[in-house]
């Protein structure tokens, strides 16, 4: 299903857009877009590489290939000050352990902050990505544990979340900023998605079915993935 998640996210990138990408699905999606309809997408990794053009998907944002193929490498303080806070980035990708109906995310703790059940890695770049890029794309697998009524911790705010791509479908904010289901992936029933959501999920009137990956997309995906991509 992560293939379909990557394809769904990649299709939403316009050629030439500047994307702040992390490792894993976001990197896969952005590189898929570059390999198909959006060859001029600019990939920025928070480690400081601007315009990276990896031939293999990196396992870490510290991969030297990102620096070697980049148009420019800047320091991490400069990346966050001049480029992210400077609002030069169109698209930022975020993942999380929990999301609520407004697109707020938790990647910090499950349970109480001081006595957590699970201590997660933490926000990293997410808090400022969420408020500095034009559009936030969220990618995460959908379940009642992750699509929650109430976050255990608010790591980042949802006001710029434009799309949430899951393994079941696609959610987009309605006029009031509440996420509703706008696409289901092939073979997925809307009720299945509602059952995997802890809040009472609305379904768009014009609910669509995600178009299956094209030959070109699958080919690009395979050639990207066979070079050692994770998950």
């Amino acid at each position, binding site marked *: 299903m992560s293939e379909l998640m990557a394809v769904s996210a990649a299709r939403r990138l316009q050629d030439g857009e500047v994307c702040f990408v992390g490792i894993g699905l976001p990197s896969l999606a952005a590189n898929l877009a570059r390999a198909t309809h959006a060859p001029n997408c600019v990939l920025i990794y928070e*480690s400081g590489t601007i315009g990276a053009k990896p031939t293999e998907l990196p396992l*870490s944002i*510290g991969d030297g290939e990102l620096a*070697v193929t980049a148009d420019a*490498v800047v320091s991490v*303080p400069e990346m966050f*000050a001049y480029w992210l806070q400077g609002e030069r980035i169109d698209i930022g990708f975020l993942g999380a352990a929990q999301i609520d109906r407004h697109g707020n995310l938790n990647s910090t703790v499950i349970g109480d902050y001081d006595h957590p059940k699970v201590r997660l*890695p933490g926000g990293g770049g997410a808090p400022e990505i969420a408020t500095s890029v034009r559009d936030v794309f969220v990618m995460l697998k959908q379940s009642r544990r992750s699509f929650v009524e109430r976050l255990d911790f608010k790591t980042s*705010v949802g006001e710029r979340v434009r799309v949430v791509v899951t393994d079941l479908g696609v959610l987009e904010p309605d006029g009031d900023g509440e996420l509703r289901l706008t696409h289901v992936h092939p073979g997925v029933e809307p009720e299945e998605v509602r059952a995997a959501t802890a809040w009472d999920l609305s379904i768009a009137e014009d609910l669509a079915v995600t178009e299956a990956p094209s030959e070109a997309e699958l080919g690009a995906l395979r050639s990207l993935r066979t070079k050692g991509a994770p998950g």
Partner: protein
Amino acid sequence: MAELVPLRTAIEQLVRDGDVVALEGFTHLIPHAAGHEVIRQRRRDLTLVRMTPDVVYDQLVGMGCARKLVFSWGGNPGVGSLHRVRDAVEHDWPRPLELEEHSHAGMAAAYAAGAANLPFGVVRGYRDTDLASQTNVERITCPFTGEQLAAVPAHRPDAGIVHAQQADRRGNVQLWGITGVQKEVVLASKRSIVTVEEVVDELEPRPGAVVLPHWVIDAVSHVPGGAHPSYALGYYDRDNEFYVRWAEISRERDIFAQWMEENVLRESVLA
């Protein structure tokens, strides 16, 4: 004034119990060997600072060197959790670990402020999140526009430790690839140590390189492989296998302790 000294000497002289210590490397050029030497010298009560604490911080925490961790993202990149950090946070083993948690933007601004000898950095951040109430930031008002921003206290570590590709014989250092916050860490710290892959007669200027003159560094140590298992562009790639294996090694206290005994504590100091 940088002196070329063995790593053991550098750590002995420049890292002390109770210090605030930053071993930095933004997922590249991570000073693993220096971290191991800190463990071997059994430093205690350290406040460890790092944007992206990963395996070597898991080791330091699991060996009981730290009382506090100041960070913005702690994990095993591409693999998962840091089990030793989680065990310390969730079960106080081997000792409680206090957390001071920031965003990357806040940490980067705090290092830059430290390098600039300012008491705080300013970011438009921490807004409307639960992080603001858990960490050490304050609101600050722009005197011209009235806008509310976040002030983060400057990082001024007692000791800053980074790894670089090269030094010359006078102790001038050059690093390249993903240079992260390494310049800021060295300049923000009261004492600084740089481990290097190679000592050369003359540093050849390279695109994208950061050069640190010898007079801002206290000690340079020649430690080939000193970033292993992380990357050192031009010298070696990341040992991805090890990062995956670390999940297994670190999951259980006993296996972890045994691994550290065999691979870190008993290791002879080569440099």
